[in-house]
């Protein structure tokens, strides 16, 4: 997995800064662009502040979600899902937002759309566990893209991101998922460029 990352990062850094249009499936262009519009002409301090603030918020929230998942605190998970949903929606991070919303619903004892009750807490926790992994995968992609977007070299980010996952029993599976997802992105890249 690590080599994949490196090559990918390298590939990006060699080329021009990534474009928003390259990641339509990750980021809603219109929403994100209106944040960029708030930037001054000569720098991107504002949007960068927002985006990097979101990174911290996301990491933080994921950590809290892990903890709450361990403690089986469904309600807290729901709140955390809602919380991150708000900011990810603001940034136009569609997939992250959708996953957060699912967590919110699961945590509230509902199905993923929030319409039907799910009485079994274990089922809800299990679903949250799965969704949390998915959302982290999605989030990682977004973060990588955005860091590159703001001209950052991404390699160092990887180990940091792995940390919370080490605590999970299904580490392998999630890793696989992640690499699969990244494979997909990688494959999709050439066609887009």
């Amino acid at each position: 997995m690590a080599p994949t990352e490196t090559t990918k990062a390298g590939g990006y850094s060699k080329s021009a800064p990534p474009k928003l249009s390259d990641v339509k499936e990750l980021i809603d262009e219109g929403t994100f662009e209106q944040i960029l519009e708030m930037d001054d002409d000569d720098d991107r301090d504002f949007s960068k502040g927002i985006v990097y603030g979101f990174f911290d918020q996301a990491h933080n929230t994921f950590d809290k979600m892990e903890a709450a998942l361990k403690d089986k605190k469904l309600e807290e998970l729901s709140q955390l899902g809602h919380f991150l949903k708000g900011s990810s929606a603001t940034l136009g991070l569609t997939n992250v937002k959708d996953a957060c919303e699912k967590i919110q619903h699961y945590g509230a004892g509902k199905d993923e759309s929030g319409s039907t009750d799910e009485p079994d807490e274990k089922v809800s926790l299990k679903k949250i566990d799965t969704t949390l992994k998915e959302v982290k995968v999605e989030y990682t992609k977004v973060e990588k893209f955005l860091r590159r977007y703001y001209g950052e070299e991404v390699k160092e980010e990887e180990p940091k991101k792995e940390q919370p996952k080490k605590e999970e029993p299904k580490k392998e599976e999630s890793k696989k998922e992640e690499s699969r997802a990244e494979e997909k992105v990688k494959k999709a890249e050439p066609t887009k460029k």
Partner: protein
Amino acid sequence: MARRRVWVKRSTGSATLVSCLENAIVDELRDQVILKFANSLGRSFDSPDIVTAITPREGSDVQAYPKRLLGPEEVLSSVLDIYYPGGQTIKEALVTDAPVIWTAKPSPHRSVCNHRHSEPGEYSDCFPQIPLNKNAPSALVTGVLTSEAGPNPSMNSILTVDDSPLPSPVTSGIRHTIDSPGMLSQALGVVDCGVPTYSQPSPAVSAPTMPRPLPAPAVSPQARTHIPPAEVATPRSPHEKSHDPSPHAAFDGLIAGTVPPINVLIVEDNIINQKLLEAFMKRLNVRWKCVADGEDAVRKWRQGGFHLILMDIQLPIMNGLDATKEVRRLEWLNGIGVLPKTVPGCSVSGINPTFPPWKESKHRHFLSEEDALADRSMFHSPTVIVALTASSLQSDRQEALTAGCNDFLTKPVRFPWLKQKVTEWGCMQALIDVDGWRKWRGFMDSSPISSESASIDNEASPLQVGNNGGIVPPMKDENFSTKTEENQMQP
């Protein structure tokens, strides 16, 4: 023929003079009253329907001259001369108000209202509380006036307007609070890379005891409508462009030129959203304050001067719906309608000892100390509350509107959409106080406050907005001006 000037007021409003012919009868006075109160009574009632009550002079013979409603055919001057020999004083203003017939629908405020206040219906035996404003405070603000049927009809009609085209197919069935102050503060700590100054992103700690008194002195009876000349005096055109760093801010003159600036309270717990909304506000060149939970929102609102609240629905401590209900309840209790309800002498204690004047014996309608707004002159009209949520469920909208929100925006909030809304709301504020708006537009002389105007201009410059988000309260009264400025400086 000589004209006679008569003091009149609405039940909880301040007195104003209307002019009638010397031999005018009460019916003719009512015509004048309707014209005078064009925004409230005049909008929903015909002049024959309004009632006018006369109260005996203090110390006079109550038996001979009882407190009573005036008949339409009574000759005004003779009644006044009998009741008030030597001339009517401002304290003896005739109380004029909406007709008694009105449906006492349970107001939404009552759901959170455990405090004692009288049933609206109680007033009917003597004189009606202004049912229209009290019951549907938001209706007037939004211009969607639907008589006295309570908030819901007006809400519904607003609902049709607010169908947001924004893509936000989010559903949310639950309303939990988020108790993660740590998360917020952490976020606060880290998101400082871009934006240098923000107006108080942290929750307001304590409200000043005498918060920024809006001058709009009910003390000056002639000034019927008090719109903040201050906000109204924002030096848009000269300063705006020079202070605006970005071409995006160069607005099509719509916001910049015509809409009186408004004061916005942002209630949002997520720092990311907060920052973006703040950026929007800056771009719109309106003043704003930011708080992170419903309790702070209510606290902040109580300081007065806010025209618009952007209210996130799911909030820690007190959610947006409860905060909205609380604001509406307090507006209701404090009698905040389209007209300033402050009566001389009540602004310090917050409790009007003669509210309403003819009901002194009954105590139930009194505001409890904790519910009384510190300075009612800061509240010209019910605040426009706009719910913000990522949910697009119709039921959530309904819930928000039922709680007393006027409108609904889905996240992510689109700037053009917000801009349009702020324009609308700003225009509504202008409608509510035409005089203030005219003043702002320079159509009227604001002679008595020229000295204040200068300081206001400074306060209201875009730079100030960016730096402290200070609310510039309306100022009309010199007594208030210094305090106002002091309060300005408070963080």
